[in-house]
């Protein structure tokens, strides 16, 4: 039998083909000293190892690898010699934001940074070539690059490492030509994610792993009612408990600092806290639904997001099909709860945290501590899940720094409990949508009216002014629905219950395509037409929606005979610049247990930078969305969240996962996202299949409340 130690030795040798490393972020700073920086993105060591900087975050979405592939592709280096390290926020501040946006949000990494990443790689390559050419006294155009080796006339050869120091001194070229994606050799390939070996061997560091000498630990309790505050705490009640260093009432939360986290948490539990619950203590899921329902009927405080033709006229005199849809609040429930370790000392702030936006963490730390941006250092780590929770809101950083400031000179690691995390999230907004449609003689819709009654993340979390009163996320995929319908009117009633809302993976596209694509299914059914053919006929011939719908339906064998009791559903939508379609085959037992037999997911992201990662993202999207649609729901009672931990917040288990069949159909010419769009088509495809199987139209999620369970 192979022992664990032997096994590790063998796998190290076998796995040696890909020696791509990953910097443990804590040690990264020291390693740059001897390494010439060609430009902000590329450093080349004398031993030919190439360090590619990555500015955004890695939370399992794979962009750290994909972004590096784009740089490496243009650089022309040997991928086996590539290491990736995080760009530093302090240098970012000092270097006029040379790395651009650092946020991993909105499925943006590739689509928003591909151009400057590729240019960064191409520019570095030309500087390396120029340095070699200068040494050989030949023209750069006489030189060729492959795998980190530069070849010149007369059989001259050198490597990136040998010319790196000279290249670093070259003037960067202004214009560089980029490769046609069809000539890619590193990008576009299913390269394994670079941080996986470090995850598997537990070398990776998450924010929760931060450890500093002399570190203290903090547990916090936030007011259970949203908007409430601390009135007083009876610190004497926990006096004499072992290890307690400080009790800190901090406005809307209380922190207990101790010499270990468990002692802090237990002391906090025993600490009598008198809360001022404020005005929201009587809010419940019912009062929230009433507010949203009133928004569906209201004549005022409603804006028109889209108006074409005359919907009111077209709805007159024709039989009107009407339906109302509802989706609940959802929590992010990242595997790693919120937390932040911080050290505030002599006007300098260091933080260690899992963040989707290191720049935002940097700015929040500086503002909270009241120090200049130049005095802040963000030590970046892998994220134990993000899903939007760690981007827009930096509440955990503010708390971590606030506590560390009160403990000036002592590093403090603040960590939330799972319960705190689930009950103090910025939730996917609750939403209610009413549709009305009239069909023409051919069964196709001649008019579509829709009204969304929902909170605005942008107005409440970001506090930004809304253009024309419209939150584009609240009305996403409805205001810009793709079907050719002559008369369309879309209204938005912004209604903000006192529950904090935020960006949850796929944001507006996590609920609106479910509603829209289910309603289109209702129309197809009323018209007595096939769900796929009906959509296809309504989509413009050249539309990308139609292309991915066709590709997915074909791969799924739409229309082919199914075994008895098995039924299909289909959906299509745009999202984050990509186009997705889904076909679900399922059966339902007489106990309403749903067996998903096939889940065929099609995506057209324009360019596929890493096909293996795209598959992983589509699979992950299925886990996330099936969890949400079967069980996901945050309910409110007495102004507080009722769910607390995995005992009352069910997530999908490994054995329940259906096989995902990916239809990757990139059509080029545009760059779409991949972290989020995969979720958008899943819920309507599954619910439309459920209707085909049972005749029951699902107009509210989660499915558990409709009596369905995943088999």
């Amino acid at each position, binding site marked *: 039998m192979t022992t664990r130690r032997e096994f590790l030795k063998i796998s190290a040798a076998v796995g040696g083909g890909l020696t791509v490393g990953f910097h443990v972020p804590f040690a990264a700073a020291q390693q740059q000293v001897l390494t010439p920086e060609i430009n902000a993105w590329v450093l080349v060591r004398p031993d030919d190892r190439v360090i590619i900087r990555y500015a955004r975050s890695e939370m399992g979405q794979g962009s750290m690898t994909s972004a590096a592939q784009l740089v490496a592709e243009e650089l022309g280096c040997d991928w086996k010699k590539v290491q990736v390290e995080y760009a530093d926020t302090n240098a970012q501040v000092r270097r006029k*934001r040379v790395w651009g946006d650092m946020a991993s949000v909105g499925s943006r990494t590739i689509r928003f940074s591909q151009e400057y990443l590729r240019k960064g790689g191409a520019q570095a390559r030309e500087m390396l070539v120029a340095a070699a050419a200068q040494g050989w006294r030949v023209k750069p155009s006489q030189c060729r690059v492959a795998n980190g080796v530069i070849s010149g006339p007369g059989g001259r050869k050198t490597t990136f490492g040998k010319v790196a120091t000279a290249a670093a001194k070259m003037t960067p070229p202004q214009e560089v030509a980029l490769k046609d994606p069809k000539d890619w050799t590193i990008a576009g390939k299913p390269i394994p994610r670079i941080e996986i070996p470090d995850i598997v061997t537990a070398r990776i560091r998450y924010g929760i792993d931060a450890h500093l000498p002399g570190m203290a630990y903090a547990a916090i309790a936030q007011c259970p009612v949203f908007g409430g505050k601390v009135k007083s705490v009876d610190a004497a009640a926990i006096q004499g408990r072992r290890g307690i260093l400080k009790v800190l009432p901090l406005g809307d939360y209380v922190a207990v600092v101790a010499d270990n986290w468990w002692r802090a948490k237990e002391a906090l539990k025993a600490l009598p806290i008198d809360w001022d619950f404020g005005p929201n203590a009587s809010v419940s899921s019912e009062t929230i639904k009433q507010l949203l329902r009133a928004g569906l009927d209201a004549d005022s405080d409603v804006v028109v997001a889209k108006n074409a033709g005359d919907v009111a006229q077209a709805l007159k005199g024709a039989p009107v099909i009407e339906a109302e849809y509802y989706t609940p609040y959802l929590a992010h429930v990242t595997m790693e709860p919120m937390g932040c370790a911080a050290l505030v000392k002599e006007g300098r702030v260091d933080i260690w945290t899992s963040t989707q936006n290191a720049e935002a963490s940097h700015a929040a730390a500086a503002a909270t501590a009241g120090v200049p941006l130049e005095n802040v250092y963000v030590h970046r780590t892998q994220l134990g899940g993000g899903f939007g929770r760690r*981007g827009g809101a930096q509440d955990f950083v503010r708390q971590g720094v606030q506590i560390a400031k009160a403990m000036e000179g002592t590093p403090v690691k603040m960590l939330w409990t799972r319960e705190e995390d689930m009950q103090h999230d910025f939730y996917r907004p609750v939403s209610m949508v009413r549709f009305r449609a009239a069909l023409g003689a051919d069964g196709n819709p001649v008019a579509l009216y829709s009204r969304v009654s929902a909170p605005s993340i942008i107005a409440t979390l970001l506090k930004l002014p809304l253009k024309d009163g419209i939150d584009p996320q609240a009305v996403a995929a409805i205001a810009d629905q793709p079907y050719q319908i002559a008369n369309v009117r879309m209204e938005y009633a912004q209604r903000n219950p006192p529950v904090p809302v935020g960006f949850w993976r796929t944001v507006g596209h996590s609920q609106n395509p479910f509603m829209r694509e289910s309603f289109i299914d209702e129309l197809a059914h009323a018209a007595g037409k096939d769900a796929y053919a009906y959509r296809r006929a309504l989509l413009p011939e050249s539309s990308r929606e139609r292309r991915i719908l066709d590709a997915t339906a074909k791969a799924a064998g739409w229309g082919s005979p199914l075994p008895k009791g098995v039924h299909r559903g289909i959906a299509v939508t745009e999202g984050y610049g990509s186009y997705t379609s889904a076909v679900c085959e399922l059966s339902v037992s007489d106990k309403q247990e749903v067996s998903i037999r096939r889940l065929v997911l099609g995506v057209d992201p324009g360019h596929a930078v890493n096909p293996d990662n795209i598959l992983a993202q589509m699979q992950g999207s299925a886990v996330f969305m099936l969890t949400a649609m079967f069980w996901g729901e945050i309910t409110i009672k007495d102004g507080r969240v009722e769910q607390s931990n995995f005992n009352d917040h069910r997530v999908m288990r490994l054995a329940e996962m259906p096989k995902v069949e990916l239809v990757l159909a990139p059509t080029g010419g545009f760059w779409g996202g991949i972290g989020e769009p995969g979720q958008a088509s899943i819920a309507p495809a599954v619910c439309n299949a459920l209707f085909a199987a049972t005749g029951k139209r699902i107009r509210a999620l989660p499915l558990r409340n409709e009596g369905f369970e995943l088999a």
Partner: protein
Amino acid sequence: MKRRGFLSGVVVLPVAGRVGKAFAQTEPKRGRVKLELPVLADNGNSVPMKVRVESPMSEADHVKSIRLLSERNPEREMAVFHLGPRAGAAEISTRVRLAGSQVVTAIAEMSDGSQWMDSAHVQVTLSACVDGS
């Protein structure tokens, strides 16, 4: 310079005109104005900033006004500060509300009618999840 002394020489008027007004006169030239804004702002609701203009601030040669222009705010002209020789120094510091990441511009109009400007980009990190920020 102390805030109190600084304020006594400056009258802040509520913003009236639109951005067009600021550009109605001669094209402002870059220089003489120094606009200080943080590279990153945690919160767009209150971003500290400072404008300094090189000027002797004498009767003959002084800064008449400093305009703050936003690229993205619903109200593009955020503030107009009217100064005179009694201000002593052509320097203002204030906090502004910014609707997301953008370029902020300060334009100073001199007593000789010439206009000078500086601009700076500020990344409002809170808005990072919104497309186009």
